[in-house]
């Protein structure tokens, strides 16, 4: 039973780390600031959620579990606000998003 719980929680921890790495790769590969935000949002949803679930299973039913749940709720309420604030600031500073009609993107892809 112990091995089983350890297996699940380590699977979640490693999977969360894997998605954090994918999000970071996306952050580097994407062409402009708006699309980079999309890549970053993988990190603080799926990556973060899997790491936290792994930690919750690892601690078992203690007071620490409740504290971890509070952290999960905090991040799930604050991270969209931060993402929206960043996008809104870019809009106000007239940062032009690269849209799919643009030639620049097609050129970038054909290279």
């Amino acid at each position, binding site marked *: 039973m112990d091995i089983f719980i350890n297996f699940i929680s380590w699977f979640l921890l490693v999977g969360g780390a894997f998605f954090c790495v994918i999000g970071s790769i996306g952050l580097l590969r994407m062409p402009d600031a*708006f699309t980079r935000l999309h890549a970053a949002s993988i990190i603080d949803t799926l990556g973060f959620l899997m790491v936290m679930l792994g930690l919750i299973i690892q601690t078992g039913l203690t*007071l620490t579990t409740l504290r971890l749940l509070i952290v999960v709720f905090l991040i799930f309420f604050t991270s969209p606000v931060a993402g929206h604030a960043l996008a809104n600031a870019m809009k106000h500073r007239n940062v032009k998003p690269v849209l799919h009609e643009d030639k620049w993107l097609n050129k970038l892809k054909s290279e």
Partner: protein
Amino acid sequence: MPLFLSSSSVLFIFWLILSGHYTPFLLVIGIISCVFIVILVVKMEILDDEALPIKFLFSAIKYWPWLFGQIIQSALNVAKIIINPNLPITPTMIKIKPLQETDVGVVTFANSITLTPGTISVEIDNDNILVHAITRDNAFDLEQGVMNEKCKRFEGKKNNV
């Protein structure tokens, strides 16, 4: 007065979770500080119905599991796009008209859009939300309005809020 009692008890439960030390002396100090904070908040006149959204609890229990499923699904989609060597993105800007009537409903909808990877709410003007989506399919899915409907149901009837 019911708002006063319920907010101090929620604060005290929060204190109990964070503290972990349950001697009588510390418990009394915890109760005193919770009540003191709520008195301060009342003096600042920022304690209203929005400060303690208990009435959304039941609709949240229905809405959050659906939202979690949606988040996992679209996070996997965006992860696939990132790994793909061709980087098949078609960034799109669209305007979505929110169906919700209250401020809480619109904020829930805009936050759900941002929380789902692949779509970000950029700007909210009078009656439209400007959304940036990473592929055209994401934008179309959002335009179908499933999430919009669910948020409409989440906010409930207007006279309740």
